[in-house]
């Protein structure tokens, strides 16, 4: 299905269009990350409708728009967003592969302190894996950490 020309259309309206017209895509990818040594590993799960938008193209704004809004919100005198138009008026990005979509999502929804330095330091702070590389049950969930012995087929947490 062809995406309508959405630049200038409110992002929420685009999401409503996508929900009505696109089939959700359940990704097998998961992002495991640790943003605090005192906490267990966290696991980011992509939303199927969001992934459908990413694969379709022409719907989502560039990830840099979210960074700009985050900068505004971090200011001490922030009350409410005044640059929300960036979400709606910035040219939407083209279709992504599932792998590119995961990278986008990491830069949108994971803390920047994690993804900017994910492989620096003594221990890997973030890893992308398949969901079958996670423990099958949630036993001892609050003790999960990224495995020290990472490989393509091994358990990631």
């Amino acid at each position, binding site marked *: 299905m062809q995406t309508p020309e959405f630049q200038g259309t409110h*992002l929420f309206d685009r999401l409503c269009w996508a929900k009505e017209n696109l089939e959700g895509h359940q990704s097998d990818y998961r992002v495991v990350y640790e943003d605090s040594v005192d906490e267990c590993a966290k696991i980011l799960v992509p*939303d199927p409708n*969001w992934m459908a*938008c990413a694969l379709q193209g022409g719907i989502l704004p560039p990830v840099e728009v*979210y960074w700009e809004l985050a900068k505004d919100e971090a200011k001490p005198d922030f009350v409410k967003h005044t640059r929300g138009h960036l979400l709606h008026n910035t040219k939407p990005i083209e279709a992504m592969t599932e792998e590119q979509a995961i990278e986008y999502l990491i830069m949108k929804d994971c803390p920047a302190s994690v993804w900017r330095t994910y492989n620096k330091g003594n221990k890997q702070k973030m890893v992308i894996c398949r969901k079958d590389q996670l423990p099958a049950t*949630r036993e001892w969930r609050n003790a999960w950490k990224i495995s020290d012995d990472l490989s393509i087929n091994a358990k990631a947490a």
Partner: protein
Amino acid sequence: MANGKIKADTLEHSTAGSLDTQYVVNGSAKAWMSLNGADTIAIRNSLNISSVTDSGTGDYLHSFTNNFDAADYNQQNNGDASDGVNCGASITQTYSSSSSRSRYYNASYTVFDAVLASVANNGDLA
């Protein structure tokens, strides 16, 4: 949009009265999510959600595709435990305009993985 628009400020019923459409626009949920919160976490259905982060037992953070305009939106949570009896109370821990983190508790005030966790957010979008 391709299908056009109907613009109206008021909806009027033949006998039951009328309603300003701003109530419909402002009162509708701007984001919602139904989540399988046990075993392998997965989003079952949603609107305006980009991801959910499993942060530990009964601890989930959902991120919005279209941010709210401020961190003052309303959130309703509900969670069902695996025994089908315990209905989870939940506490929203942290709000921002881009995400919200919730923890689910059972009747004994113990954090639990909700078999079905649902969230709805009302408020003004950015």
